[in-house]
């Protein structure tokens, strides 16, 4: 991933900074130009909560390029306590111990490395609530 692409999304991916439609209250994450629900372009910053539950998951055994060392890892969709959903990895758990509905919380972790000489990419993952 190029440096500018990684750097630009740090607030969203590392601090869960999202946005909210001031007209209908819909939480927009990832960001969009206009509200996904009502189409309004009146959008303000919104801090996503850091707790939620696991809506669905899979165990990735054939990882894509850049994630070879991480297999097997758990990919999932989290539903945060405010209803917002996002896709990320579930960490600090054995693949066999993951279950739909488990309570999870945000943690800042390493996502990947751009080889031995490129930059390291970090973002928010989730782990079983501690």
């Amino acid at each position, binding site marked *: 991933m190029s440096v500018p692409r990684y750097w630009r999304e740090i607030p969203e991916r590392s601090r869960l900074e999202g946005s909210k439609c001031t007209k209908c209250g819909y939480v927009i994450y990832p960001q969009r130009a206009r509200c996904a629900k009502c189409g309004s372009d009146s959008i303000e910053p919104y801090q996503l909560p850091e707790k939620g539950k696991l809506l669905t998951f899979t165990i990735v055994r054939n990882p894509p390029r850049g994630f070879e060392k991480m297999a097997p890892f758990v990919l999932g969709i989290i539903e945060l306590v405010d209803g917002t959903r996002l896709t990320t990895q579930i960490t600090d758990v054995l693949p066999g111990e993951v279950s739909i509905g488990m309570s999870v919380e945000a943690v800042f*972790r390493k996502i990947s490395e751009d080889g031995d000489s490129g930059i*390291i990419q970090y973002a928010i993952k989730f782990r079983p609530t501690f």
Partner: protein
Amino acid sequence: MKPVIDVAISGWGSYIPMYRITVEEIARVWGKSPRHFREEMLIDEKAVAGIDEDVATISVEASKNALGRAGLSPKELGAVFVGSESKPYAVKPTGTIVAEAIGATPRVLSADMEFACKAGTECLQCCIGLVGSGMINYGLAIGADTAQGAPADPLEYSAGCGGTALIVGRRDKEKEPVALLEGSVSYVTDTPDFWRRQKCNYPSHAEAFTGEPAYFTHIISATKLLLEELSLKPTDFKHAVFHQPNGKFPLRAAKILGFKKEQIEHGLLVPYIGNLYAGSSVTGFSAILDMAEPGDRVLLASFGSGAGSDAFSFVVQDGVRTKRDMAPKVMDYIKRKQNIDYAIYSKFRGKIVL
């Protein structure tokens, strides 16, 4: 040493990864007996960073715990320092990764410090100076490491992962101080007991030389000088935390200085998690704050190879009672564990070349 403005700890927090490997498991692979490590070095198992963890991620969680206890917005921090000997980049500050992730940027001073295992307390000294001079209101000092133990080397049994963040604030602005600083002493000499050259993956050490001329000379000298300056005796302290490369050294240092075993036991974590390097003494200090009572005097004495020691005397305040339950305690992280074998350990620590 004491700054012109009195300073206090406003918040503290730690993080220890959940994975553990026992000395038995390491010894099994190299055909050694674990007895020496368990019974003489007093190490049972060590904490291992997961494949997605490093000093930056450890520092971020420890810092968030400290901020939670301090009741501060990250924007109130004037400095973010990370002390480590296993920082993710050789050149690129871990401090900025942490500062950005916790939301402290952009009006903040940030840097990484290296002085082997005392890098964490150096960050603390710097924050004390910055806050105590009135330059900033709050400084965040982190000591964290994921130091590599060379396979088959004795240090492989003890090189553990984890870290602690301490937030220093001004005594006159802190509504609920956790601990007041009475004073500190730093004592350093050029003593090459343990080092790692630029292009090497693993450190080297001078074996027995790391004892008396290094660890003991510096930690005992710094502590003695501190006690003299503050006109204190070991019996004035409720708790004492020494750097813990193993269980044997801090027990012996305590004895030499005149501290009793009961004074150091609550901060002695190395049997459960190993030596956290720059995170070692500060995490022991964090464990003390997790259970100390207002009025307790605490000694914190680090040691870093190369070599030097920073010794501090703190007096615990009321804030410790209201703040300690606001974040996971060191023992909570110690109890959260999953044992792994040497194969998974090698995979996590990047010892398998793909």
